[in-house]
Each structure stands twice: as C-alpha cells, then as structure tokens.
C-alpha cells in the first residue's frame, strides 16, 4: 500500500521526535558520567558536555577510599539482598496459602488485606509505631516493615491459582504435605513471577533513601542513597555560597582534581551501577510484570 506524502512526512516527524526524546532521556545521565570522569576544578570552568576535557580517575579513587561511602554501599547491598529474599519468600508462602480454596476464612482474610491497599495510617502513626517497636536506628527497620506486600501477594496468588490442580493432587496422593507441594512443585514452576517481583522489590530496596533518613541516625547503618542525599543536600548550600564568592572559590580550588561536585557525580555513578547491571534482566521480565499487575486485577 503506497503511503501518501503526508504519511511519510508524519513518519519522519515521529522518528525525529522519538530520537530527540531518547536523546534528552539519556543526556543527563551521560553528562553526569562525563563530569565524574573529569577533573573537578576543570569542571568549574564550565563547558563539559559530551566528553571529559581533563580526564581523571581521581574522583572514583576518592570514592572507593572513603570508608563511609564503601560502608554505605555495603549496607545497601545487604539490605537489598536480605530484604528481597525475606519479602519475596514470606509473601510467596502467604500467597500460596491464600490460593488454596479449602483455606478456612479465605474471603475474610482477603478483605482484610485489600482494605490496607486503600487505607493507611499515614506517615506519622507509622513513624510512632516503629518507634514504639524499638526498631529505631537498627538495620532491620529497613527490612521488616515492608516484609509483606499485599500487591505482590495478589500477583503470586493469581499465578498459583493457575497451576494445574492435577500436579498438586498427584503429589498429595504420594504423601506430600502442603508445605512440600509449595516448595517442591509450585515454587520451581514460578520462576518468571519470582524473578519479576524480586527485581521490582530489589530496585525498591536499593533506591529507598527516605526510610533510613527518618529512622536511622547512626551513620554506619545508612545506605548509600541516603548518604548521597546528604551530600547533595549540603551541595545546594555550597552552590548558594559559591554564587556569592566564586572568585575566591576558584582560586582555592585550582589545585584540586576533586571538588564536592565531581565527587558527588562519581558517587552517583557508583550508586547507579547495580541498577545498570541488572537493567537488561529487568527489561526482560518487567514488561510482562507491569502487564500482569495492571491488566489482571
């Protein structure tokens, strides 16, 4: 079918718009990476866009030598791994029980759960609850409160219900218990769902900076995102000051390859690397995951 001239122009415009959008989506990230590899003092002169002008690895050297930042990274990794394992595990078990039609009280339990999706106490009551549970300033405050996700439970449950009953029945006949069926038959079949939900949960844990910022004051327990937030927050103040006295700043900074700004960029890159590594896998699973979650209510 021949395309009209109008259609071809439209197509061209579409491609151009999309290319532009992709460029703007990617540029901030690229620019930050470039700045992280650039000499900090040199960056202050301005003009760094697509490629480093004065290449240096100093910023990263400082990051990797700073025990506080390494510590933050380690905490983030621990939290993500432990948090995801526990949460997905607990929620899957919960969902399996909920998927059995013979479970007494099933409907009531379901209503109990769904209500929490629409109503919540809010920030302050939750804050005070955590406080009264003595979870303040502990590693576990980052892992425990989010342990059971009703949303994930529902997704798991829908999936489990779709598993042919015959498989479970024949296992039961052979003497398998409910827990046995769960671990030996159902879970091995749930690879894609587990992968998708685990990836989403892991991303949430990795990116969460707010919860630790209000519940943890011990600097050794802060994940890297919260530490980064503190650095950036103080940067805003120093930007204001730099406005007022840029000449003096420039003179003082001449010798330094690392400034707060270039250091922040390097830290940001380090904090993003795990996401980037995992991203190809995320792509494979999450498109399906988003659809499952939204279209199958």
């Amino acid at each position, binding site marked *: 079918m021949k395309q009209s001239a109008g259609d071809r122009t439209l197509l061209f415009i579409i491609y151009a718009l999309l290319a532009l959008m992709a460029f703007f989506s990617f540029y901030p990230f690229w620019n930050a990476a470039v700045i992280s590899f650039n000499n900090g003092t040199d960056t202050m002169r301005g003009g760094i866009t697509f490629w480093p002008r004065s290449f240096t690895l100093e910023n990263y050297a400082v990051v990797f030598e700073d025990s506080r930042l390494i510590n933050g990274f380690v905490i983030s990794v621990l939290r993500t791994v432990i948090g995801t394992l526990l949460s997905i595990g607990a929620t899957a078990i919960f969902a399996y029980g909920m998927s059995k039609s013979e479970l007494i009280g099933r409907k009531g339990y379901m209503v*109990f759960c769904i209500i929490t999706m629409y109503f919540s106490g*809010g920030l302050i009551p939750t804050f005070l609850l955590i406080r009264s549970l003595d979870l303040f300033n502990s590693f576990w405050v980052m892992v425990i409160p989010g342990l059971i996700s009703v949303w994930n439970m529902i997704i798991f449950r829908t999936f489990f219900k779709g598993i042919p009953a015959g498989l479970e029945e024949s296992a039961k006949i052979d003497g398998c218990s409910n827990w046995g069926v769960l671990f030996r038959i159902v879970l091995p079949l749930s690879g894609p769902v587990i992968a998708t939900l685990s990836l989403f949960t892991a991303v949430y844990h990795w990116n969460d900076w707010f919860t630790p910022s209000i519940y943890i004051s011990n600097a050794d327990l802060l994940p890297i995102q919260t530490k*980064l937030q503190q650095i950036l927050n103080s940067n805003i103040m120093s930007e204001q000051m730099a406005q007022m006295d840029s000449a003096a700043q420039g003179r003082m900074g001449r010798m330094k390859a690392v400034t707060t700004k270039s250091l922040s960029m390097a830290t940001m890159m380090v904090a993003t690397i795990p996401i980037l590594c995992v*991203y190809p896998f995320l792509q494979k699973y999450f498109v399906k995951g988003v659809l499952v979650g939204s279209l199958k209510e």
Partner: protein
Amino acid sequence: MQNTTHRVTIEKSKAKPSLFKRFGRQWDLQLMVLPPLLFIFVFSYIPMYGVLMAFQDYSLFEGFAGSPWVGFKHFEMFFGAPEFWTVIRNTVVISLLKLLIGFPAPIILALLLNEVRNRVFKKVVQTISYLPHFLSWVIVSGFVMSMLSTENGSVNMLLQNLNLIKEPINFLSLPEYFWTILVTTGVWKEIGFASIVYLAAIAGVDPHMHEAAAMDGAGKLRQIFSITLPAILPVIIVFLILAIGNLLSAGFEDILLLGSNPVLRDVGDVLDTYVYRTGIQNNRYSYATAAGLFKSLLGVLLLVGANYAARKSGNSLW
C-alpha cells in the same frame, strides 16, 4: 456355597466436623497465612488506628492511652494556619500541572512508538526511556542539580550559546521555575515506564480496523484519532480515575529533594511535605496526623467521585 452377606449399614449421616476441628486439620495451611496476617495487622492496621491521635494532644511520654482528647482542635488549627491555603494551592496546582502534562505524555509516546517499523530503533528508544524510572530520586535530583547548575550546567550553557541569556540562571533557587522543574523532571522520569501499558493496549487494536480505514483514505493521523484512541479509551479512563483519586499526592520525594531550599517553600510545600515537616521535623505529631487524615479522607472522596463520573460514561473501576 458361601453366602456372602452384605451388611448394609445405613450410616448415620455424620455431622460435619466442628469448625474448630476442620481448622485444626489444615493447621499447616493456616500457618502459611496467619503470621503474615498478624504482620499486616501490626504494620497496617495499628497505624490506621493510630490516626485517632489526630484527635488527641498526643505526647510521647503519655502514649496513646494517656494523652488527652481534644476533639477537632488540631483540625481547626490546621485550617486556620497561615500556610494552609498556600499548601493547598501548591498541592492542587502541582498535581494538576503534573496531570495535564504528565498524563498525556506516555500516551503520546506509546502512539509514536507504535508507528515505528524499525525494530532496532524502537527497542533502543524504549530501553533508554525506561531507565529513569529505575533510578532513585536522589540520583535524578543529582542530575537535575547538575544540569541546572550555574557552573557547568548544560541548560545554562545551552541558553548562553543560543544567546538567550547572558548570565547563568540559578534555577533551583528561584521560585518561578520550581513548578516547571518539577513537572519536567517528573515526566522525564516516568514517561517511558508509563507508556508500557498503553503500548500493549495499542498493540491489541485490531489491525483490520486500520486497514479498513486506510482503504477509505484515512491518513495515519486520522487513524490514530478515530481508531486507536477510542480503542484504548477504557485503559486511559481507568488510569485517569486513579490519577484523579491521587490528586492530593502532588509529589513527595521529588519536592523534598529539589525543593529543600527554604526560598522555595512558598511554592513547593504540598500536603505530604507539610505533614513530614510539621510531624517528623517539628515533632507536632497530633497536628501533622490531623493534616494527613484530612488529605486521606479528601482523597477517598475524590476517588469515589471520579469513579462515579466515569461510570456514567460507561467505564469505571467498579
């Protein structure tokens, strides 16, 4: 010859075993379910009940049981506070702006992407567009600060190169730019990921319809408006209802991170950040809870209202 006698016994119909017994028999299943339910009770229901402290003069020392009841005192204080109307205005404006621009954006992106035939181009654009969704707001705010900086900010450098401005502008310390920055950043972050569902819906449209329209002489643009859009209207409406129900959630992390400069408070403070500030930073627990409760109740009204309006048009959540 043996007489095989069948003993036909009429069994007395067994009474169904008591609930207790049946429950006991499936204790292993209940074990899978009861601890999580207890967990949900503790972490979701107790705070719900804790909302009642909005009606108390809650004190940490007295606790919930010991704090005096003061009725609507905190609500009155909230409504009468000088910053009340500022906060409400900011919440509504920012939310509407984000809705006006951020809601159609993923739809448009999905429509554009759908027209692309080159698989590689499509994949690359999609991959890039999804990435910002997975970055934390801390990282994104870092990017924004870097791009808008007066020292090496690409935005300022571009504007200067185009001779639109002489001196770099310190965007993040000027209230008049804040809303624009918020909305733009929000769209940048979510447009790709949000377009996934729309893309799937568009892909589900019957291609025969498009062919028929093309036969009748409809150009691409016409096809998009007359066929694709109406076909995905149910999906759009569902999301629109949810968006309206969330109208009072104008943002939180983004405002906290990008708007930490006190200069921006007049334009940036929304209900959620107000609750955070007064509650966690200033320790006015009851007061902040009252504000939060106000927001929740209003939100429920909005959601129900939006759904009601949508039901009239034939598409609704329930």
